Each structure stands twice: as structure tokens, then as C-alpha cells.
């Protein structure tokens, strides 16, 4: 078989037309997921069973099921309920984009909360004691001592999750969304040339992942100043 370079050159600009949607999926779900993760984290750290337990069950379910299944349940499943169709959330759930963002946020929130929890638990207990001995309240210790260090510790794992989320956005194409993946599938349906089209798409995704990795590398370097002996 031959590799049709012209087809590649033609399809790349078309697929890049979906960049906006892909970025929107990534950024909006990333931020919403992070917000959800922080809420779940605080629930888990509260040591109150009525907060900790629901958070644990939630994380267990979201991590235990495929994200594609979650997207389908939300997109195909929820509209079957009359009360959902008559609720205030319907304008969002009616749209594939709303469903995709909801599913991605709910999914990444579960993972990220565990990443953040690992960071918090890894902070040296002695630092909390030092804060307490200085008269600082638990709240102060959490905000000024634990959180900044936990963020530094959790950052590499978190950047991993963002990269993973970026690639999960491609699943949104299964519910009619014309992100880069969705456009690629349309091109393949027209041209019967999956090889050229998907290889080109893979290259685009790699470029994006590289950008995310570089950005996080920079943040890690900035936040890690205090870990370097010579400035």
C-alpha cells in the first residue's frame, strides 16, 4: 500500500478546525474536574464518615467504570427520565457538548482528588506539628503549610492526568461532537483512508501533549525553587 501525502496535507487543516472544541472540552472539564476534586478531597480529609463515605463511593464507581460507558450513560441514559428533561439542567444535558463536559469532569474529578490526597498525605507530619507548636490553627496549617507543599508533590501526577484527559476528549466524538477526532472520522468515512488520516491526527495529539508537558514542566520548575540547593 502507499501513503497518500496529499491526503494528509489536506486533512490536517480540516482536523485542526476541531481544535477549538477539543480545547474547550479539555479546559472546561479540566477546571470543573479540579473544582470537584477539591470538594471530594476536603470531604475525604474531613474524617467525618457522612462526608468521607459518599466521596469514597463516588471515587470507587468513577474509577471502576470506563469513561466511554459514563459518557453513554449520561448522553443516552439520562434523557429517558422525565424529571431530568423538565429540570433546569436539561438545556445542558440536551446538548452533546454539555454531556461530554459533564462526563469528563465527573471522571477526572475522581482521579484528581486521589492525586491531591496523595500529595496532602505525603506532607511531613513534623511540619504540621511545628505549625501547631507555633500556635497556628489547623486551618492555617492546612492553607499555608500543607497545601503549597502538597501541590508541589502532586503536580507530576496531576500533569499526567491532564494529558490523559486531553486524549479522553477524543471519546466525545462518539456522541456526535465534531472535535478533532470527530472530524477525522468524517474524513475517513469520505475517503476510506484511515491510515493517513489517523496517523496525521496522532501527530496533532502528540504536539498538543508535548505542549502540556512543557507547560507543566515550567510550573514544576517554578514551584520547585525551594527544593534546589543552589537557588
Amino acid at each position: 500500500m502507499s501513503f497518500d501525502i496529499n491526503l494528509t496535507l489536506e486533512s490536517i487543516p480540516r482536523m485542526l478546525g476541531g481544535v477549538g472544541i477539543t480545547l474547550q472540552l479539555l479546559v472546561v472539564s479540566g477546571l470543573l474536574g479540579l473544582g470537584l476534586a477539591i470538594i471530594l478531597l476536603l470531604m475525604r480529609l474531613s474524617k467525618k464518615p457522612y462526608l468521607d463515605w459518599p466521596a469514597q463511593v463516588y471515587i470507587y464507581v468513577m474509577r471502576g467504570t470506563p469513561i466511554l460507558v459514563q459518557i453513554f450513560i449520561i448522553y443516552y441514559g439520562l434523557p429517558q427520565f422525565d424529571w431530568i428533561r423538565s429540570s433546569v439542567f436539561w438545556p445542558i444535558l440536551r446538548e452533546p457538548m454539555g454531556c461530554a463536559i459533564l462526563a469528563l469532569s465527573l471522571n477526572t474529578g475522581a482521579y484528581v482528588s486521589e492525586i491531591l490526597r496523595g500529595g496532602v498525605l505525603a506532607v511531613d507530619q513534623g511540619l504540621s506539628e511545628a505549625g501547631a507548636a507555633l500556635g497556628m490553627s489547623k486551618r492555617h496549617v492546612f492553607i499555608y503549610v500543607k497545601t503549597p507543599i502538597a501541590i508541589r508533590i502532586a503536580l507530576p501526577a496531576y500533569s499526567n492526568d491532564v494529558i490523559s484527559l486531553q486524549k479522553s476528549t477524543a471519546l466525545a466524538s462518539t456522541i456526535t461532537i465534531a472535535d478533532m477526532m470527530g472530524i477525522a472520522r468524517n474524513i475517513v468515512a469520505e475517503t476510506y483512508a484511515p491510515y493517513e488520516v489517523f496517523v496525521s491526527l496522532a501527530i496533532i495529539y502528540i504536539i498538543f501533549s508535548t505542549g502540556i508537558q512543557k507547560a507543566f514542566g515550567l510550573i514544576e520548575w517554578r514551584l520547585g525553587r525551594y527544593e534546589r540547593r543552589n537557588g
Partner: protein
Amino acid sequence: MDSAEMPLIEIQQVDKFFGRFQALKQINLEVRKGERIVVCGPSGSGKSTLIRCINRLEAHDSGSIVIDGTELNDKVANIDAVRSEVGMVFQSFNLFPHMTILRNLTIAQRLVRKTPKNEADKVAMHYLERVKIPEQAHKYPIQLSGGQQQRVAIARALCMRPKIMLFDEPTSALDPEMINEVLDVMVDLAREGMTMICVTHEMGFARSVADRVIFMDEGEIVEAAPPAQFFENPENERTRTFLSQILTH
């Protein structure tokens, strides 16, 4: 009783358990203002637990601990009051690694005492000069030697103007050549009349500075005596064994 004679620290019949393990057994101890106590004993004897009970890093299970008239119990207000009078220095320094030295010294002043920034900075620089490292103010802890970090930790505690200073094996994590620079700061502090309880095995320090040396074993205070008597004529067999073990070299 005259308030000058009232003990600053009053510990009565204190027990402390970790699960089934009894870390402190019926501890009684009174410390007057300005007194310098050295606590020694084998590892696991309860000496760290004892001083950690004094600022409620550990909660005692029975008996009473009264610090400068405030009883330590579950009341947060009481705990806060005691912690604002009691400074502590840890074996592993426990400086906040993500803050500069200056910020390490000002954070609690600003959050707990609500001291304005420039005043907190002044206090911090004052104590950094006292521990002889003002030039390190804008560095991060990792950029300092162990001895310097421990001096910063002492300065950090002093910034809160405590009435009592607790030292939990402050030189145990240091390389030998750095021990003296930390002990020197502690000796200065003792000379100025600070009430101190030091868990340490630096017997030279105990001899020259302590008013009383306390030996603990298996959660009990086995012996408490002025250093001359403690080192020359220990009454208890366990004290003699311990001293012979650590003073052989």
C-alpha cells in the same frame, strides 16, 4: 503563695497510652520560672512524649497539666493559650521548606499574633542576629547547613516570645561539627533566664546548664537531681547503668 514561686509548669499524675502501650506512668513534675531541666533516658522511655504533652502535641489520658495557670484539656482556647507561651524545637528542625528563612520566622507572628509585616520582619531579624545568621534571611531552608537550620528553628520559636522553651533532642540529627553552634545558642538562652526543658543526651550541656537532670525509663521518672549529684552519686541502679552506657567514651 507568691506568684513568683508558683510553678510555671505543674504536671500531676499524668498517664499517657498509645493503644495498649503506656508511654507515661504517673508523671509528677513541677518546673519553676527560669528553671532549666534536662531530660535523658533510653529511647522509648517517654521523654519526648512528656515534653510533647506540655504543648499538647500529645493529649495526656489522665492526671493534670497546668501551664502558667492554664489547664491543658480539650478546650481549644486553653491549648492556644498554652501554645502561645511555649516554644518548641524539634530533632528534625521542621522548618517550612517552601518558605524563606524570614517567612519561616514571620508566618506565625502574622497569622497568630496579627503582627504587621514590617514589625514581624524586625522581630525576625532581631532573633536571626541573635542566632548569628541574619545574612541567610532570604534563603530557603535547604540551602542552609543542619546547624544553621536548627538555629533558625530556635529563632522561629523565640519570635513568638515564649515563656517556656521545649527542646526535643535538638542536636541528635546534626553532624558532630555542628552540635556546638546549636548548644551555644541554647546556653545563651539559659543564661538569660529562659525556662527550658531539654530532652538531650549532651551530658556536657546538662552539667553546665541544668538546674535539674531527670532520668526517665519505661515511662517513669526514675531520678531527678541537680547535675552534680546526678552524675556523681546517682541513687538508682537504672540511672547508674544508663550513665555508664553513655559516658564510657
